[in-house]
């Protein structure tokens, strides 16, 4: 029998709709015979046929990652049994009973010796809503720890904090994606959708035809190139100056009388303070800081104002402006600008942030954040705690208080009062975290590390125990896309015999740990509990159920029981008690960066990290897809030909990029798309090519977001291969 399932892509937050079909005959069980061992990176024949499905977000389109996603289902490198690392450092398969017994023992041991907070959990924005929800509950009730956070801290935390501060609520896009189709002006800051979510680009066609696409990016990215030929404007500020640019735009809006005074009066508070705070950022002064010409700043402000009066204006932010130590303030400056122009909560305009990970939206709502309970509730709010205690049927005192945000959590690994036993889910922190070398050292200093993954990722390789879990086509569940629309993920194929769902793993461990409350391994049962848990919260899912989603209903949260959901938010008011949006004055902070000069031949440059079309996040999945790996087999550092020439670097030459945290050695790619003082490195690659060996674990004081987009590095031609030099050093010492 041929099984076909309508589901969504396993990768990014656009969650392109796709249909999975088993190819004709032999897959009666859904499984083709195992691939021969030792077959290396040769692609397994896809177990499933992937095709794009018509849906408002992707309109049938898929990118290369989506098309090739099924090739991972029967990849020869897949982990299909629990793998335990012995004293000899070699992984050997063990039974599930033994695996769960070892985890239980490790947890009990850590708790007995160091207290409950010595057990930590690191979650991910790729987990389904059901898993994210149950993971938070499992950590707090079954493990009794406050130490849970997730990799969304590296993506969405700044925009989320800014949205909370301004609107009282954070939903990435508070409007359906299709609303962009008819906009007159769209300002995109620090987002390269042409590479990161290509089918999204369809929604920019209208604004490009209208000449109203304005892209802010230090690189002439694929998205920035859409502004040529009359598509719009490209503003190319120096890295780290986005906040100043936004203050300059607000300055022009105020001083040229472009603001929507009635809206500001009726729907916002804090206007006067914002006026004073942007006063000092007149366009020529902003030009001196950012390098963006004053007239281009004025033109941008005018187009935004004019667009708001015609087809609509949208301001969208991405990681480029958010992944900074002042990311929350930068997102706030973008929101202030949008409020001055009267965009949020209006009929045809808005502000939004483009969520990155597959369930980056849902993942930040259901309680896997250190400071949060399900329904986007605050863990310090007594009413929220009482509500959750009643849903879970436990005493409120059993729910721990706030834990540590991701960077601090990772810094605490192996430390005296830190985490000694760590669970990692849907995350490859050894590659994706800032200051990755330090994170790897932390992982190695743990008493016990258990990683749930379907591949032996760089993080899994550091584990004591790897638990094999399911891939997207093998499971049921829900995800919430970048618009806040809840989507169904559906099973198309049977999983390998030895793999288990995280829900099952949590349920079994909870049992073994005599945990209070209940833990189900059935997604729909968990979702029903999630509905109750979220009821009355900010992200209210109580009116949504599987049957409704399966009928094709477009369910945008907040969706309280009895309502019809909320495709466009804030129309009647914002989520603060007085219904008004809060404008908070922000200003660039001074940064003191000093760095020793390691090598006179090296030049100081600014490193930006980011993504390529062919790869997703740490690359743990996409580097295993032969077609994608062939297209982008290695990290290449993008450098301007003028800068390269001064250092004797030619296209394809080996380059060393270093700072006090580490060194990356990779090939150079000469490109005029980048500014001469800046280099770009994708972060999808491990080891010597791991960009995050260079990023700093400094964090935003409000959101805990690390600094990924503005790091000082020294760049030079690599003279000797570093491995040789390392060996020589080792011998000499």
């Amino acid at each position, binding site marked *: 029998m041929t099984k076909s399932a309508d589901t969504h892509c396993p990768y990014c937050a656009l969650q392109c709709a796709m249909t999975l079909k088993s190819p004709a005959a032999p897959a009666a069980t859904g499984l083709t015979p195992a691939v021969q061992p030792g077959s290396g990176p040769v692609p397994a024949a896809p177990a499933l046929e992937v095709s*794009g499905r018509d849906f408002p977000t992707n*309109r*049938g*389109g*898929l*990118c*290369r990652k989506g*098309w090739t996603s099924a090739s991972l289902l029967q990849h020869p490198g897949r982990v299909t049994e629990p793998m335990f690392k012995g004293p000899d450092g070699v992984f050997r398969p063990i039974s599930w009973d033994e695996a769960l017994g070892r985890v239980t023992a490790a947890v009990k041991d850590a708790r007995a010796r160091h207290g409950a907070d010595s057990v930590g959990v690191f979650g991910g924005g790729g987990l389904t809503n059901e898993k994210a929800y149950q993971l938070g509950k499992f950590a707090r009730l079954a493990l009794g720890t406050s130490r849970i956070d997730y990799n969304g801290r590296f993506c969405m935390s700044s925009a989320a904090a800014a949205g909370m501060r301004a609107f009282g609520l954070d939903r990435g896009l508070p409007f359906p994606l299709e609303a962009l189709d008819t906009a007159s002006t769209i300002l995109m800051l620090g987002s390269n959708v*042409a*590479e990161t979510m*290509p*089918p*999204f*680009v*369809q929604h920019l*066609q209208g604004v490009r035809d209208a000449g109203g696409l304005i892209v802010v990016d230090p690189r002439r990215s*694929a998205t920035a*190139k859409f502004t*040529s*030929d009359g598509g719009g404007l490209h503003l190319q500020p*120096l890295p780290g100056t986005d906040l100043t640019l936004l203050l300059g735009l607000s300055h022009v809006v*105020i*001083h*040229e*009388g472009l603001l929507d005074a009635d809206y500001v009066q009726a729907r916002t508070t804090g206007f*006067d*303070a914002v*006026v*004073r705070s942007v*006063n*000092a950022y*007149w*366009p*020529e*002064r902003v*030009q*001196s*800081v*950012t*390098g*963006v*010409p*004053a*007239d*281009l700043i*004025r033109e941008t402000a005018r187009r935004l104002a004019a667009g708001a009066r015609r087809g609509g204006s949208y301001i969208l932010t991405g990681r480029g402006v958010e992944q900074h130590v002042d990311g929350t303030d930068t997102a706030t400056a973008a929101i202030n600008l949008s409020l001055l122009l009267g965009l949020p909560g209006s009929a045809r305009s808005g502000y939004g942030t483009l969520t990155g990970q597959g369930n980056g939206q849902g993942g930040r709502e259901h309680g896997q954040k250190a400071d949060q309970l399900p329904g986007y509730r605050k863990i310090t709010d007594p009413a929220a705690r009482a509500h959750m205690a009643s849903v879970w049927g436990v005493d409120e005192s059993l729910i721990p208080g706030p834990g540590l945000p991701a960077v601090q959590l990772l810094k605490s690994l192996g430390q005296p009062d830190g985490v000694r036993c760590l669970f990692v889910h849907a995350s490859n922190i050894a590659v994706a975290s800032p200051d990755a070398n330090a994170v790897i050292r932390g992982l190695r200093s743990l008493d016990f590390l258990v990683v749930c993954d379907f591949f032996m990722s760089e993080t899994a390789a550091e584990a004591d125990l790897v638990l094999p879990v399911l891939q997207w086509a093998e499971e049921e569940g829900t995800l919430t896309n970048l618009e806040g629309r809840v989507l169904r993920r559906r099973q198309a194929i049977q999983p390998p015999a030895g793999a288990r769902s995280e829900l099952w793993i949590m349920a079994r461990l909870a049992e073994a740990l005599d945990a209070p409350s209940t833990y189900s391994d059935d997604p729909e049962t968990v979702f029903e509990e999630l509905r109750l848990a979220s009821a009355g919260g900010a992200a209210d899912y109580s009116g949504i159920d599987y049957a409704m989603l399966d009928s094709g209903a477009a369910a945008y949260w907040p969706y309280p029981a009895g309502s019809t959901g909320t495709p466009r938010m804030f129309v009647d008011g914002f989520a603060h008690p007085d219904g008004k949006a809060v404008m908070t004055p922000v200003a660039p902070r*001074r940064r003191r960066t000093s760095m020793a000069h390691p090598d006179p031949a090296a030049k100081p440059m600014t490193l930006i990290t980011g993504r390529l*079309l*062919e790869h997703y996040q740490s690359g743990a999945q996409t580097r295993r897809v032969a*077609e994608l790996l062939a*297209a982008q087999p290695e990290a290449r550092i993008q450098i*301007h030909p*003028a*800068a390269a*020439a*001064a250092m004797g670097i030619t296209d394809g030459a080996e380059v060393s990029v270093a700072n006090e945290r580490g060194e990356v050695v990779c090939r150079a790619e000469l490109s*005029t798309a980048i500014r*001469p*003082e800046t280099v770009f490195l994708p972060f999808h690659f491990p080891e010597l090519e791991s960009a995050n060996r260079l990023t700093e674990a400094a964090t935003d004081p409000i959101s805990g977001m690390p600094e990924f987009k503005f790091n000082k590095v020294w760049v030079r031609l690599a003279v000797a291969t570093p491995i040789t030099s390392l060996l020589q050093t080792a011998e000499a010492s």
Partner: protein
Amino acid sequence: MSEQIVIVGFGPVAARLVDELLPALRAGQVGLTVIGQEAEAAYNRVLVADLGVGRTTPEALALADAAALVADGVDVRLGVKVRRVDRARQSVILSDGTPAHYDRLVFATGSRPVIPNLTGLNPDPAAPVLPPGVTALRDLRDAEVLRQAVAGRKRVVVLGGGVLGLETALAAAEEGATVTVVHNGPHPLGRNIDRGGGTVLSASLRNCGVRMAGNARSTGVEHNAPDGGFSALLLDDGSAIDGDLLVLSCGVRPRIELAEGCGLSTGTGILVDHRLRAHHEPHIFAIGDCAEVRCPDPACIECRTARGPSGLVGPGWRQAEWLAEYLLLLSEGAAEDVDSLPQLPQEKPGVVVLKARGMNMAVAGDNSADPWDEEVLTAGAVNGRPRLQIAQWADPEHGRYVKMTTRGGVLEGLVSVGMPRTAGELVQLFERGAELPTDRSLLLRLDGPDQLASAGASNNPESTVCRCAGVSGGKIAEAVTGGCSTVAEVSASTRAGTGCGGCHEDIKGLIEKHFQGAAA
């Protein structure tokens, strides 16, 4: 008891200092008194000309909110002057007779406009009483005078070819006034700019509708207007420039009388060391336009080349930020921490960027040398120090001019007229002290049209047509040869065009190319 800080003056620089001190004030660490002579709390003086031409509103100029500051516990005194400073008692005595005790006193008294020595103008710089129809455009009241002239489409004469004069002239002309700029020398901006840049700048100003009267020496003003006000500016060649309003834009002079009166050392401004302390007076500081950083050490190399106050607000704001940190350390009383704060870095020569719509100009540093001026270029090149190098681009027909004066690849001077992106890049390269690309022409091409715009599918079969699915032109051509004749068929066969759909036109082009070839 918390340390009492008194700030004399409430302009933009004082406002920044107050902002920076607010958290400590709220925490009870310091007490704060601000004394402003004007009735308004600090506003953005840089934008007074914009206000004068009706481009912005007084509300939008506010940099501080007196009521909010009072609510925070700041003692705000507006509309009063400081009569004198009693250093022995650490007290300032105000014009209303009240005293204010200080532990630390900060002068932020700013500057006042230079009133040129012209017959018909009161030459006393300390108490200028300007006749009707003459303004120095310094405060909100002056802005109102200009606003009425511009609204009435009157004739405005701007005396002075400095950047503020040019900005006022451009704005007023664009808003409908008839404007003449009267300046010394062959071009405006005097020695800030070189001959080429100045000449192109002059021409550009004329194109913007501003009349330029160069090489002019003014001698007096005529008051023949019906109300006895200004009617003409008289020049030394016997000619006169008629007008309804004279805007004096002849530079500013630090306000130092109060400091002089209490015996502090002064030069052009109040002399302060690298920690902004008045000489030999640990309780008194000065920042902004009234401060002149020149330390008492005669051997200090930095101070040998130091200039007087720049008259720009940027350095003042940096001083305010630095001083706030310093004052807070002082109030904590930890001597080690105080000493560990690195002293205020020396200011680079100021960057002058013309604030104007539709016209772009930036100058900075020393631009006096010419490319073939061998003697000047090599003059400073001793002890291995590289010589000066000049790169220059002149296109007067199109109002464009760029000059980069570098030493060791780093800018020592720059001029950019009519090249907005080049100006933006050069200014921040100058500010950062960063090295220019060896190929200087790279910086000129930034203002050109977008390079290599997507001009349809490339002829190279290897090049990617569909980025989303990673499909080359060659693959698509193969599919077409193999029988695909529509975009949909090509998409089904190769996945090209199945992502964002942006390449559909290119695919169509390849299909058409194939069938045209077949027909031929």
